[in-house]
Structures are given as structure tokens and as C-alpha cells.
């Protein structure tokens, strides 16, 4: 089935849940910046949770569907686009993302998933290297995507229980595990609000707030870093790495965001703010288990509503 891109939007890319096993080659994890929203968007249309979906950023696209399909949009909210529930699109129908209402990134899934070749075990777009997804790049006006044909029957009118969603906010507090160089900094990370600047991208959120001053001047040697790592360059403005983070970093690592709170970061737009609170690795794992159980329950509930035709 073909999906025509009438207007591409600001940065619309094909994403999935990322790549494993290639960090040592310098290949980022990548995938959806908000993996939670992508998983739910896929489950809502009967796909496996790691299927491909479109990641929409700040300004959404306008798409035309050649044939009838089920789609779902999760994550950021846009005018004219109902979120967190399956939507039936008729043959020749369009979906137009209006003004952004809340959040930064939305995920548009389609029953069957978008048909792109896997590269290094992932189907997501790695913009920095121009590989994966749709020709290694963001969508442009006039592109035509293919989706894997699949017929599904969805019953009734419903949307998912908002209580299973992350606590999305324009001013969230995210939980962090102290990093190797935490003791070389003061308490400002935990006592202040940090603003998200326009220089943020899929690689990282560049924050501004009180300058974080490192007490040690010792030279650091580059080490592995990962999505969630908070680095502090010499200018004292922290960078929180997200999906397309470089695999190595040489700046002090003040803390690491718990995996379950990364979706909250992915939904921050320039001008929004963030605060940090301390947690432990054990607590972060417990939170991840709870989230996993919530998604499994949701999956079970959906199985009663979605049937192959």
C-alpha cells in the first residue's frame, strides 16, 4: 500500500526501537526518541511493538493513503489528529497534522508497518550517517512510502487508559542515577530548572540554567556514553543525550536519566524546562519492570479488540 507525502513537516523520519550490537562500531542505538509512544502506536494497530512508524517533529506532515488502513498517533498532540487510539482511514483519505498542542514528537503507526529495508538490524533512520529508514533521510514533499499490506478488524470505539501513559509535561522532573563525576559538581543539577534550547536534536537536548562548575580540572579520556547520559562541557551547560547520541563522549558524566523517563525528555520542545531528581539503578530497574507489566496488560486488552481479518 502506498502512502504519499503531501507535506513532509519539519523532520519526519521512519523509526523503530533502534539497533543493538553495533555500539562498538560507533553506530548509535537510534530508533524512536520516545520509544514508549512508538510501542503503543504499534500495539494500537495490531503491529509488533518494534514495527516501524513515522516520528513527527514539532511541525507535522500531511499524508494521503492509497488504500484503507488503520493508523494510530501517539506522543505529542497536534490539532486535528486524535491521539492514543486507532483511526480508520478510508482509501484516498488524508491525515493533516495541524498546530502542535503539546509535546515535541508524535509517532504515526500503520497496520502492517512501513516497508523499509533493515540496516544493521534496525529499520530506523540514522540521519547523522544517512543510513536506514527511508533512503537514510527525513521525508520530503512528494515522497511515496510503502506499507506492508495487512488486514485487521478493530472493534468498537475506545482509546487507551491515560493512566498507563508517562507523565508527559512541559516542565517534568526526570529521575537520574548519579554518574562517575557527580561528586565533582555541586547540587545545582538537583535544585534548579534547566531550559531546553533550540540547539537540541535527536542526538541530545542542550540545556541552559545555572552554570554547572566542575571542581576538578583533571583531564578525561573518552568512554562509552548512551542515551540518557548527561554530559557537562566546559561551558557548564549540560547536554542530555537521547536516541542518536554519539557512542563515545569525553565530557564529565554528571548523571544518567532512568530509561523509563527518557520519553519525558523526548517530548520537550525548545522553551520547555526540566528538573532532575536522584534515583538508584535498582529503583530504575523496578520502574522499568512496572512499565513492562503495564504495556503487557495493555497488549492483552488490545488482543481482544484487534483481529486479523
Amino acid at each position, binding site marked *: 500500500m502506498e502512502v504519499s507525502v503531501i507535506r513532509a513537516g519539519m523532520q519526519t523520519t521512519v523509526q523503530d526501537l533502534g539497533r*543493538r*550490537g*553495533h*555500539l*562498538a*562500531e*560507533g*553506530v548509535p542505538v537510534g530508533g524512536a526518541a520516545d520509544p514508549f509512544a512508538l510501542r503503543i502506536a504499534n500495539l494500537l494497530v495490531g503491529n509488533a511493538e518494534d514495527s516501524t512508524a513515522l516520528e513527527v517533529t514539532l511541525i507535522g506532515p500531511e499524508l494521503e493513503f492509497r488504500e484503507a488502513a488503520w493508523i494510530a498517533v501517539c506522543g505529542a498532540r497536534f490539532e486535528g489528529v486524535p491521539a492514543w487510539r486507532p483511526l480508520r482511514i478510508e482509501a484516498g483519505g488524508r491525515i493533516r497534522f495541524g498546530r502542535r498542542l503539546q509535546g515535541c514528537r508524535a509517532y504515526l503507526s500503520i497496520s502492517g508497518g512501513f516497508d523499509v529495508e533493515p*540496516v*544493521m538490524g534496525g529499520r530506523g533512520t*540514522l540521519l*547523522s*550517517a*544517512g*543510513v*536506514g529508514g527511508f533512503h537514510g533521510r527525513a521525508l520530503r514533499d512528494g515522497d511515496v512510502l510503502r506499507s506492508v499490506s495487512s488486514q485487521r478488524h478493530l472493534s468498537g470505539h475506545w482509546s487507551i487508559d491515560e493512566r498507563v501513559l508517562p507523565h508527559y509535561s512541559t516542565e517534568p522532573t526526570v529521575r537520574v*542515577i548519579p*554518574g*562517575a563525576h557527580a561528586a565533582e559538581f555541586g547540587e545545582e543539577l538537583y535544585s534548579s530548572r534547566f531550559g531546553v534550547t533550540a540547539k537540541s536534536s535527536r542526538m541530545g537536548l542542550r540545556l541552559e540554567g545555572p552554570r554547572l562548575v566542575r571542581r576538578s580540572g583533571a583531564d578525561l*579520556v*573518552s*568512554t*562509552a*556514553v*548512551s542515551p*540518557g*547520559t548527561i554530559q557537562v562541557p566546559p561551558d557548564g551547560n549540560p547536554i542530555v543525550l537521547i536516541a542518536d547520541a*554519539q*557512542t*563515545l563522549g569525553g565530557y564529565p*558524566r554528571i548523571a*544518567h*536519566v*532512568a*530509561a523509563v523517563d527518557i520519553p519525558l525528555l523526548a517530548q520537550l520542545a525548545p522553551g520547555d524546562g526540566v528538573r532532575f531528581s536522584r534515583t538508584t*539503578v*535498582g529503583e*530504575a*530497574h*523496578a520502574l*522499568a*519492570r512496572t512499565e*513492562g507489566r503495564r504495556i503487557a496488560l495493555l497488549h492483552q486488552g488490545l488482543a481482544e479488540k484487534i483481529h486479523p481479518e
Partner: protein
Amino acid sequence: MKLEPLGDSAVIATLGSGIDAATFASVLSFADAILASKRAGITDVVPAYETVAAFYDPAFFTETPGDAYGEVCRFLESCAERARFAPPASGARVVEIPVCYGGEFGPDLGRLAELCGVRAEEAVALHAGADYLVHAIGFTPGFPYLGGLPDALRTPRRDTPRAHVPAGSVAIGGSQTGVYPVDSPGGWQIIGRTPMVLFRPMERPAALLRPGDRVRFKAVSAPEFASWK
């Protein structure tokens, strides 16, 4: 060996301090021991200079409920123990990389030579005359951080990074040298370009080089560059 959490999905092991041959040898053998174990739930192993990071999925470490981190640490300690008794790795691979130095391919060669107080030809001879060791792969897919740059060629990074460095560019940053495998921004001094492809996403492995490889550069002319296969 010091073990610390790198967030909730990796443990980082520090095996020494600074960039010395003994530390780096133990980094490589430790990383090999982790990979050789094929332990389910270890998703990535990233050696770099003095550290090895092991990325894990906590759902695979449930022997002690609520302490996946401790279990990963105990697993890594057992790998370190095995690595200690492993025979030293047989001779490292040596990869020769052809480079067309200067001209349009190496716009910073003249300035770099000036900063180092040598003629451009001497800078090329020094760069192509040294043996390098891949200490880490990162920055962009397949980018090798190479140690072994002659002291005479140490040059600070550019004040303003370039927004676009073409794939194949060979560059010097501080006491290191490297090759940009894909088009990317970059702040190092660009002294030449290789026709060799260092990153092929559809091949396994995708990166030409891996930590522990030895690298030598070989100066080639522009016609040799153009006809290189």
C-alpha cells in the same frame, strides 16, 4: 578494575588510568572475554582507551531479584578473571590506508605544517611514517581514534568546527589522528583524504577498523587516488 553504573542499562569498567599499552591490552582482552562468553542479555561491549562498557538488559539478570546490577558486576568480574589467564592476542591486524595529502583534499595541511614549524612535505612524511593503534571507534559510525601521532604533529583543533567534512578526510586533533568515515561536522585539522571506505552499513562488520588494529598511512598521488579500488 573499578565497576560503576553507566545509567540503568550499562556497567562501565575502568582498567587503568590514561592511555598506556598495558592498560589498553587488558581492555582488549577483557572486552574479548565478555564477548566470548556469549552471555544472553549483554547487548553491546564498547572498549575505549582505559574502559570497557557492557550494556545489558536487566530482564536477563534475575538470579538475585532486584539486583540485576550486582549480577552484571559479578558476571564481569568472572570475565576479568578469565581474561587474566587468556593468552595474549596473536599479532594485531595491520591496515594500510592510502592518503592523498594536501591540496583540495587536505585544506589544513599548510596551516598545520606552519603551526608545527615544518614544511608540508615533512609533515606528510611524519604522518605517513608512524605506526598507529586504534584506541576506540566512535564519534561517527566507523571513526577510528588513532594513537601514535608523532609529537611534532600535535596541533590544536580548529577554533570553529566545520559544518561539513567529506567522508574519507584524514585529520589531526590534539595528539590524535583519525579518518572521517561519513560526511559529518568536524573540528579536526584536515590534511588529506583516503579513497578507502571505512564504513559499509550493509556489510558485517560495518566498520573497517576495530579497537586494537594497527594502522599505517601511505601517501598516494591524485591520479592514484582517482584510480584506487
